[in-house]
């Protein structure tokens, strides 16, 4: 893995992930591994928009990581946040991205994981939180097959039915673009888990999900 220098500290850290939005480093502090997420500048955006997004997303992510855990969803704990450098220091979760596991596990295991994913999303929704980017890339599966949700930069609080419907729609969207050969199986299992946890309240969000799919197009 490549070594890079981060910030003024000149710490030699390892890049874990290089996304469109951020760079995530694995870093050592106090003899322990941590993940350091740094939101890069997007030079193609107007400066005002860019800095506002970096700031609001960093603080949102930080806040929701904690709230989600209070709702019973596993998330990395936050140790520090820096709104000047737009970075968050959090737990490093030892595990594999759900996205990468999809092709490696049995169908039975996959359905179980999807059900648990649906349950976690429902736990958030019941607490009035939407994830905002619920893809299989943003779920880490640890060695005990426990799910950890990450990447809460697009999350929102005080979620309405519409916002929950959009969240579910995004799951479907992610499955159809990334896991198209298993999309039906995975979506069904995820929705099953969602209903399992959200109970009667699931109905409204699910019917909204189906409605959203038809928008933004000619009719």
């Amino acid at each position: 893995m490549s070594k890079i220098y981060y910030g003024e500290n000149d710490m030699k850290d390892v890049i874990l992930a290089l996304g469109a939005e951020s760079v995530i480093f694995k870093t050592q502090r106090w003899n322990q591994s941590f993940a350091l997420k740094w939101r890069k500048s997007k030079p193609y955006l107007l400066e005002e928009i860019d800095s506002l997004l970096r700031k609001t997303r960093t603080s949102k992510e930080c806040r929701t990581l904690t709230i989600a855990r209070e709702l019973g969803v596993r998330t990395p704990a936050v140790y520090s946040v820096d709104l000047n450098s737009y970075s968050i220091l959090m737990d490093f979760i030892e595990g594999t991205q759900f996205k990468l596991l999809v092709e490696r596990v049995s169908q039975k295991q996959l359905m179980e994981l999807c059900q648990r994913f649906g349950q976690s999303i429902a736990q958030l929704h019941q607490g009035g939180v939407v994830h905002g980017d619920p893809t299989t890339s943003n779920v880490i599966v640890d060695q005990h097959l426990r799910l950890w949700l990450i990447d809460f930069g697009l999350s929102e609080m005080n979620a309405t039915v519409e916002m929950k419907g959009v969240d579910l729609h995004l799951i479907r969207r992610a499955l159809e673009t990334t896991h198209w050969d298993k999309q039906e199986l995975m979506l069904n299992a995820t929705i099953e888990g969602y209903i399992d946890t959200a109970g009667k309240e699931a109905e409204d969000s699910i019917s909204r999900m189906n409605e959203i799919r038809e928008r933004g197009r000619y009719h």
Partner: protein
Amino acid sequence: MPLICLGLEGTAHSFGAGIVTSEGVVLANEWDMLKPSQGGIHPREASRHHSDFGPSIISKAFETADINYRDIDLIAFSRGPGLGPCLRTTATMARTLAVKLGIPLVDVNHCVAHIEIGNLESGFDDPVTVYVSGGNTQVIAYAGGRFRTFGETLDIAIGNMLDVLGRHFGMPFPAGPIIEKEARAGRTFYSLPYSVKGMDISYSGMLTAAKRLFSEGIPIPDICFSVQETSFGMLAEIAERAIAHTKKKELLLTGGVARNNRLTEILSGVSERHEARFHRVSPSLAGDQGAMIAWNGILQYKSGHEIKISSSHVLPKWRTDEQDILWRK
């Protein structure tokens, strides 16, 4: 001998007839756009426009190409997605010609055609495509035998948003080019709702807020500037997410709104960041026109696809990812 295809496009307010050879040469590309004197596009008026002007546009295409009706080998038509009445009018013309000339009929997906004509022009092989028009706003890429929509608008299309805003300012249709010009004189940025959800976006909140700025007396150039920066920024962000996700090395910008220079600048900035090649489809091939339908018709026909008249009903809600792309491996 190369094949020659006549393509008819008529999904919305434009009717187009294009003639293209299997070597990718555009022999003719004629179109006409309904410009409502006020308000938006009414599907029935648009279909009326197509039936009134369609035949003469088709004749003009043959004149420009300098060929005879008997010289064409197949007919392609835009089967969807689009406005039902417009699609039916266009399909009727295509079927009639196919029967009359006794040649095969090919049904083309409008969105897929936009991508493939862009590929023909740019020489791209496998791009992430940003398709922006009055009726569509999608980020599309090929994966697993189909063109898949990675992101799109959850409410209104970007072109529609610009037109509605322009109408609010009292600008004629289409307002996009006027808004672009006004935006260049804008100096002050007003923060507007920036709504990215996963790889999808939403424009309705931003539109409402922009209208409010106008009622508060904010100068039009500043509103146009703020709207462009915000709406294009959102689009650029989901395009970047799609590139980062798919790791593709080409970015294609197409559709009527591709004419906007600021959008082009922003998206080329995205591609630079990912060392991807960038291409904006030229105006004559970026908007709704028949050449793209004809070219896609050829691609489909050569891969063994044609459609019987009896099953050629239109598909107003035909999704981009519902068609098997037989001509790509």
